[in-house]
């Protein structure tokens, strides 16, 4: 069996699944509220229950998102010349013929995705808490309602792109969220700078 490298730790994988499941539940129930969709309400056992589920799953989501900072935040803040070149070739996603510069553990698309989700996640959680808990402050609640919905729009764009790019568009990537392992040969191709830093190349 080919030699493997560990890209994601156990707690990272578990936390990512908590994030993924809570996020998708929140998006589905969010659509239910946004368009008063009776079918979605019924799935959750009625709109009253769906509101309770939405609120508390939101708590799980934001705690999980904040916990994820220990896995991704430091990497997400560091960009180098190769990262800038990565944007010029659109990460190689639009054509397989372009030369993609060597990448570290995460490419800048992933890093910016993380920062966008972190910012939108904090915004949607704070505004959610305002709508949930604050009373008698119409200006604040309407502002929170607006922020909550703008952040929702970021999620419904970014999350499907993330899911597509980590499954169908990049075969083999999904396994990292199952056991955290990547074959060494593949890792050398995809994350050469990370592998060099780890002394494997």
């Amino acid at each position, binding site marked *: 069996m080919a030699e493997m490298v560990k890209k994601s730790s156990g707690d990272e994988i578990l936390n990512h699944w908590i994030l993924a499941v809570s996020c998708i539940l929140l998006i589905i129930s969010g*659509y*239910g*509220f*946004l*368009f*008063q*969709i*009776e079918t979605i*309400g019924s799935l959750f056992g009625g*709109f*009253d229950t*769906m*509101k309770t589920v939405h609120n508390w799953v939101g708590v799980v989501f934001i705690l999980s998102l904040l916990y994820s900072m220990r896995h991704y935040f430091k990497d997400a803040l560091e960009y180098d010349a190769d990262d800038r070149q990565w944007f010029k070739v659109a990460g*190689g*996603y*639009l*054509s*397989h*013929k372009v*030369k*993609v510069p*060597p990448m570290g553990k995460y490419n800048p698309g992933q890093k910016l995705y993380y920062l966008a989700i972190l910012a939108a996640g904090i915004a949607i959680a704070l505004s959610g808490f305002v*709508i949930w808990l604050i*009373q008698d402050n*119409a200006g604040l*609640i*309407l*502002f929170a*309602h*607006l922020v909550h*919905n*703008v952040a*929702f*729009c970021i999620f*419904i*764009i970014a999350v*499907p*792109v993330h899911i*597509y790019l980590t499954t*169908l*568009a*990049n*075969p083999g990537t999904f396994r990292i969220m199952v056991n955290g392992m990547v074959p060494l040969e*593949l890792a050398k*191709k*995809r994350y050469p700078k990370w592998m060099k830093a780890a002394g494997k190349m």
Partner: protein
Amino acid sequence: MANNNTKNRKAILVTPEVCIGCRACQVSCKSWNQLPGIKTKNTGTYQNPPDLASAAFNIIRYSEVPSQANPVRWLFVSRRCMHCEDAGCMKICPAPGALYRTKEGAVAFDRDKCIGCKLCVNACPFDVPRYDEEGKVTKCHLCFDRIDAGMQPACVKTCPTGALRFGDRAELISTAKQEGFGTIYGEEDLGGLGSLYAFKDEPKLYGMKDDPAIPSSVIFWNTVLKPFAVAGLGGVVAAAAIHYLAVGPHKEEEEV
């Protein structure tokens, strides 16, 4: 859906000029809707209770507006849900059926379907909806149950001076105009209100809101963000599908 059939649209016409501030409308509303009394404190005005409440679907607002001719002038306005044609509360409500349009064009509520999010309170241009102790929405429902039985709303029925009149909305407007009232508050606002006010003076004197409107953030949310939430998701799913077919997944052998 909004009831645009103004032929059938019913309304309450308030004529503050003939209101004597007796508050019979408040009492009959409580009586019909079985609402409890509210303990209040005297704050130097006869207005009581001080504002609409979960146990007060209508109130008479007392304004002291002295003028040259009349140094002790009191103005009375019977205030309740305006039953907007274009209702901010219904727009923002996330729970289907919690706020709904009656066949007379009024905005009624179903507390069993209310999820207690209170967004309607904040989206209302007139600060009308209230929450009861169980966290469910309450407000004037234009006595749709009485109207169904061929009766007038309780407040109208009991009004001794004709300051409250109920009937066909278009007819009420033309009657008020014939009677010489220059300003019919609510004739055009928010698509037309179901609570109309006939004034000779400036409505503002009576504490009526100038140019009432649904908050702009709610309009933006409704006209931009909601469509975007559908188009955006559909767009990225379509883009992913096109990418998969046109460019295809990443292939390792093409890498360096």
